[in-house]
């Protein structure tokens, strides 16, 4: 039985582990990546881009956390995937061909964010990828798109990637900005909050200046976008607000991005209570002041509980680590409360910029509710039109459309269509998104063979026989 098991080794996971170890616990940290850092500090130990100005100081801030993860009390297991987590906190792990089950008193989910789906016509063509994927290729392998490259969408990551490409000498044919008109005006009331975090605000302004000085063709108020080509991307076509006709540009790579959303696959499958965040336009698990879900012993730190950014994720990791130590009696209640109060104040300061950013970069409806001919479910190739037709036939929620169309039933288990389908059904049925709901998800979270499952089942029997543990024996699927 482990004190605390932490899933994910991004800023939240690492700082949760470091904090738990500081209070004398022996945390187990598992992560599917081969090295620590999560997506934001991805490949920080191995990146070929050693010149620090290229990826920027914010990236290299992750080094301090990675160094402290080497604490001997922390059992860090890379390249390990989680295929199951039960309400009794039994966790199924898979490393290479080896499956195993472990049990924890406390679980901290630090599974971070994923990019918001960006369904446009042609987004499944080879050559169309996400901005996040471009950044991962850059950080981990120094691999970059060949010209002509088009970047499209909205949000801080898009600008950061453009700046990073400029610094390494990758030409950008065009930056198609889908930020709708009026967003700056709408963001204005939130500016005082943003000014509580001037560092982040200044960083964004610096990126915009850098792009302007480099003379990047920045096309604003893009209102429609298509990726075109036969078998692979050949052209990007777009329209701007208030203008007729399509413009096109030849492209071999198109990188899309419209913000990030909490990666809630595990909390949804667990059946944690979730709420719709109307400002961030995403589901997030309902958390208390210690970042605990409504399931005993399971907390969420970092972007998986609502988008907060890397700095705040680190602070949340501290808070969750502290909470675990407190729950296990490793720290006196008074001290825990005092320290938690300190972390919450820092967190409030750090996240004060979110309402401004969320408002400024809120994707317009047409980017979330695509036209009928656009594929929504990439795996099973279901279009937005088919989902709307299902609504006409009386489907109220995504589990019904899943049963009728297979939408969300493919290998990604609805990760890339779930949000779009919920929003489409809510819109088509004239009902709230809360009434519409989300997919019912089930383990395994990741592909696992029957052989691996059988081995894990044997391990589970041994675990059940152990003292103090009574997990349910898993039934092979």
């Amino acid at each position, binding site marked *: 039985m482990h004190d605390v098991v932490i899933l994910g080794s991004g800023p939240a996971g690492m700082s949760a582990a470091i904090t738990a170890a500081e209070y004398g616990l022996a945390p187990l940290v598992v992560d*599917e990546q*081969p090295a620590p850092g999560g*997506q934001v500090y991805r*490949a920080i130990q*191995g990146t*070929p*881009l*050693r*010149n620090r100005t*290229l990826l920027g100081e914010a990236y290299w801030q992750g080094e301090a956390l990675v160094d402290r993860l080497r604490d001997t009390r922390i059992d860090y297991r890379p390249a390990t*995937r989680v295929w199951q987590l039960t309400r009794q906190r039994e966790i199924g792990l898979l490393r290479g061909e080896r499956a195993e089950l472990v049990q924890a008193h406390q679980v901290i989910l630090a599974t971070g964010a*994923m*990019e918001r789906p960006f369904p446009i016509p042609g987004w*499944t063509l*080879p*050559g*169309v*990828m*996400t901005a*996040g*994927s471009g950044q*991962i*290729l850059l950080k*981990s*392998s*120094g*691999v*970059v*798109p*060949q010209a002509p490259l088009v970047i499209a969408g909205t949000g801080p990551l898009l600008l950061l990637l453009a700046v990073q490409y400029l610094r*390494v*000498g*990758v030409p950008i044919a065009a930056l198609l900005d889908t930020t709708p008109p009026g967003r700056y005006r709408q963001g204005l009331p939130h500016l005082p909050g943003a000014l509580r975090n001037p560092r982040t605000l200044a960083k964004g302004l610096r990126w915009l200046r850098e792009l302007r000085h480099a003379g990047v063709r920045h096309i604003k108020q893009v209102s429609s976008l298509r990726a075109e080509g036969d*078998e*692979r991307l050949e052209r990007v076509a777009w329209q701007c607000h208030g203008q007729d006709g399509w413009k096109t540009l030849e492209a*071999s*790579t198109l990188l899309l991005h419209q913000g990030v959303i909490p*990666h809630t696959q595990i909390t949804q499958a667990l059946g944690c209570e979730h709420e719709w965040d109307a400002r961030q336009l995403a589901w997030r698990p309902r958390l208390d002041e210690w970042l605990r879900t409504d399931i005993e012993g399971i907390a969420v730190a970092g972007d998986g509980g609502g988008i907060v950014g890397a700095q705040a994720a680190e602070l949340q990791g501290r808070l969750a680590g502290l909470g675990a130590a407190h729950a296990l009696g490793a720290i006196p209640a008074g001290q825990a409360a005092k320290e938690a109060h300190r972390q919450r104040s820092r967190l409030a300061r750090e996240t004060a910029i979110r309402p401004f950013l969320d408002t400024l970069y809120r994707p317009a409806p047409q980017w979330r509710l695509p036209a009928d001919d656009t594929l929504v479910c*990439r*795996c*099973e*190739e279901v279009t937005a039109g088919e989902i709307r037709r299902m609504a006409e036939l009386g489907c109220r929620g995504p589990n019904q459309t899943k049963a009728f169309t297979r939408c969300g039933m*493919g*290998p*990604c288990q609805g*990760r*890339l269509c779930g949000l779009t389908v919920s929003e489409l059904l809510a819109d088509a049925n004239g009902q709230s998104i809360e009434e519409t709901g989300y997919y019912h998800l089930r383990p395994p979270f990741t*592909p696992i063979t029957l052989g691996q499952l059988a081995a894990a089942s044997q391990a589970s029997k041994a675990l059940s026989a152990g003292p103090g543990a009574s997990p349910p024996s898993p039934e092979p699927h």
Partner: protein
Amino acid sequence: MFQRLSLPDMPRGSEVSFRFGEQELQAREGDSVAAALLASDVLACRSTPVSGSPRAPYCMMGVCFECLVEVDGVPNVQACQVPVRDGMRIRPQHGTEGGR
């Protein structure tokens, strides 16, 4: 589609060889299989079970499952989650080959 940067102070890293279908390709140690394929100008790593349309890596972080390939005889491997190794035999996954 993609290329390797060559900046003055970049470590070159050691080279590994792998097969993709019938092609003998090179990559750098530390690349994921997906990065290795993209840097080798491989256009598509699989075709879909529904329409047979070609697909390539999309998210590079294990979310989209577009980069499913067969690695050393094991189907349904997410190419973006597995480091490429010397002598690896990778096959594109067509249609329903990976099961459904």
